[in-house]
């Protein structure tokens, strides 16, 4: 079984050179979306991030984009099974993957039995409905 919860995360978008992006990719909650774009999920200080990135790439863009994202979390021993019903993405034991979940593009952070799905706010209701439909008997 898995528990489904929804929250409004803090998300910082970093658009910078590959070198600068690589520097922040190892931070907790980092989603390396592309070589030149990283999203940091969690309460990282945006000022500290900006300083760290701009030291390497003065032309970087560091922006608080929290309002653009919603986090749907599946947590518990059934979380991976539930996720498999929504997506063909292969989940690592821990780390970041992105791709189609319920036919929309989602950023996924995994840590053991916890699967965090970062979805654009405008599509959050769609994904929530699909999770509830597809995984009904797996949710507590």
């Amino acid at each position, binding site marked *: 079984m898995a528990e489904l919860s929804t929250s*409004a995360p803090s998300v910082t*978008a970093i*658009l910078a050179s590959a070198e600068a992006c690589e520097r922040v990719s190892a931070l907790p909650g980092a989603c390396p979306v592309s070589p030149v774009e990283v999203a940091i999920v969690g309460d990282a200080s945006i000022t500290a991030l900006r300083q760290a990135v701009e030291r390497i790439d003065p*032309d*970087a*863009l560091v*922006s608080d*984009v*929290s*309002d*653009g*994202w919603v986090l749907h979390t599946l947590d518990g021993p059934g979380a991976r099974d539930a996720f498999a*019903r929504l997506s063909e993405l292969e989940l690592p034991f821990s780390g970041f993957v992105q791709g189609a979940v319920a*036919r*929309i593009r989602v950023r996924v952070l995994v840590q053991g039995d916890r699967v965090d799905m970062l979805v*654009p*706010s*405008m*599509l959050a*209701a*769609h994904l929530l409905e699909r999770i509830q439909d*597809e995984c009904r008997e797996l949710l507590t």
Partner: protein
Amino acid sequence: MTQGSLRFEGREVPIHDGDTVASALFRTGVRTFSRSLKSHRRRGLYCGTGECPNCTVTVDGVPGVRSCVTPAGGGMRVERGRGWPSAEHDLLHVTDLMHPLMPVGFYMKTFVRPRFAWPVAERVIRRHTGSGPLPRRREPARTTSRHLHVDTIVIGAGTSGLSAALETVRAGERVLLCDAFGVGSQVPRPRRDAIGALEAEARKEPGIEILEGYAALGVYEGPTVALASQDELVQVHPSRIVVATGAAETHEAFPGNDLPGVWLGRAASRMASAHGVPPGSRVVFVASTGEGLEHLLALVAAGTNVTAAVVPSAFVDRVPPAVEAIADGELVSAHGRGRVRSVVVRERGLERRLRCDALVLSTGLSPRDELARMAPDEPVEVVGDAAGDGDTPRVTGGHLCLCEDVTVHDAEQAWAEGFRSAEILKRYTTATMGPCRGAMCGRALTAFAAARSDEGDRAAVARTTARPPVRPATLETLAASVHEMIEKRTSLHETHLAAGAALGWSGGWKRPFSYGDAAEEYAAVRERAGLMDVGTLAKILIAGRDASALVDQVFPGRVADLPAGRTRYVLALDEAGYVADDGVLCAFEDGSYLLTSTSGGAERMDARLREWRHRLGLHVHLLDRTSELGAILVAGPRARDVLEPLSDDPIDAAALSHATHADVTVAGVPCTAIRTGFVGELGFELHHPRSRGPELWSALQSAGEAFAIRPFGLDALEILRLEKGHLYVGQDTLPDDTPAKLGLDRLVDMGKEWFVGKAALERLAAMPLGRRLTPLTFAGGPPDTDGLRGMPVMAGGDVVGRVTSAATSPALGRAIGLAWIRTHGGELPTDLRVGEATATIAETPFYDPDGERLHG
């Protein structure tokens, strides 16, 4: 007892208890059920189990319905699809006489030269072949799609399928049991009784979900099994697949095998026992298996006059005394014009002709194992008859493949041409590629190849590749998931619902079309103030040191000189110079830009910008803020009065004039306020953090109460923007519209060194326009101007264009619209009509042509 009647080609056909469409028709004397695909040969009832194509008819306008497995219903309208003038008297049967002139693949060889011949021939061939005309007028079906996750799927709910399902569920797994028809419906009649208990048990079991009328189309990687019913596509994701699809009766190929009156055992015994109609008045039976013998006994028990039975000597003792048993005889051929009149049987080396009007064959099984064969790497098990080796049919002549009208002679010709294996014979002759998907003829084709190839040539005799769909499905069902909409919502979704808004689809979003009274919403904007949720607009931040270079090269207008704080309306062209999108570009102090463009087009615009960033090698950051930013438009002559008490920032005409923007705080919410004019009034677009949307909306509504502010939807917007002559890219444009065709030349600066589409526009400048988007006013049209949209524009009896948008303008007191109209020698035609209305070419804006209200 009769249960109403169905209507068959103009006459009433009574329906008895338990009738299928086929049994009801057969009882009233119908013997020809269809005409064959190419040669228009008569075809009668044959397999009786929904496999072969012979009994397909058109039911209530839907062609290709297998009448033998379709329950008859009162009031059904049944017709035979093919045949001219009718299926009964079909003059196109002449094609059968021309068969020698039309060998396999003749259309590929015959109409190659001259080149104009093929399009002509194709039209003729198309008209005279196929399963009958497609339904002309039919409500679009609402097919849906869903996913199902189970431990095990059992395909086929016959004896083996039910047993497998029960066994699996007892092991603690969740089981999905599906059948193309109904539970137990395809079990041969003599064995029906045994299945009752199994069925009752399975239906009681909560761990078994049963789907009847769901045909498994294919097994795919994953594994995934696609099931199709009439109105639903189900994608099943099991861990294990059990194929229990049983077997069809062997289709033997001998001269005369497709004559009406030739039956397979299951069809004949079902017709006699279940429906009480004997398959003929003098029946010859050929049985070589135990099941065949059971069908023979069932026929006799039902009172059918079976005159002779060709059986193995071991069965002779069990043949009823009234039937002449021909031990170890061999069926040679069937004869008759239009139906069977006699058969020739070889008995101890001597041929004998037997008079009869029906020939029933039950000579073995052809396992339906395609689902198992198409997915060798998936966890598939085959049980029951589907797992059997099957019997090899005799192939001596006649029709090899009933669906595609391929004769043994055709196959022999193809063999002589060098197509020497079952697989390439299939591809060349199209045998096994018809609606039965090889269930009837697949083994006959392999047997044909085996008889002619060298021993040990395994490639020649290998079974042909099994591919989905293994049963017919409509394109409507297959496309079901395409209709599945992904719903985007703004942060004000609940607010709109609470306000009683009628929401509808627009560019992938659910948006309010009206809050109950679009006319009043319109009036509020024109006279006082209105409020609209425009959070659906695409919003893309363009930043980085080359941002200005990118916008200058992607957009055709002069934008590099856009000062910070100003906004400009821009077009986006593709490389062919065609208008792909439009938007508003806002320049900021730090050298970045915010681009707002068509709702629903964010991904496209983002991709366009990314592509050009890459191709031009520019250092630009692109951040799609569509989801992150909400936007509310406050518009109307009192819009500023609504905002002023909510903000300490200056928003007067000097601080925030038309086509400028500024960062302001409204009701405590940080906003980028953009002065826009899409509706033609003083307007402020307040872009704000999405999460603050509801509080901003509610503050604006409260502040606007003094001016009777109203929220307005897309219906009011349609009139407001049309009065200003503004177009929607996509609705008012065609894919090959250039700025000139839309009258938007002013948005292109040909003096710029380079922009996307410039070279194409230079070339096109030398060519005549061809068509122009033209504002029209209408007189004498329908009261509901919605009806004008999409109507052809006529001039002197010729269609010269099409209306793209129309609305009744309260400001002008008449219907107005936009239409594309063809030009001749650069001139637009005159004396235009649209339906009943006369149309006059007008100038835009229709409303406030000097833009005084806009600048207010």
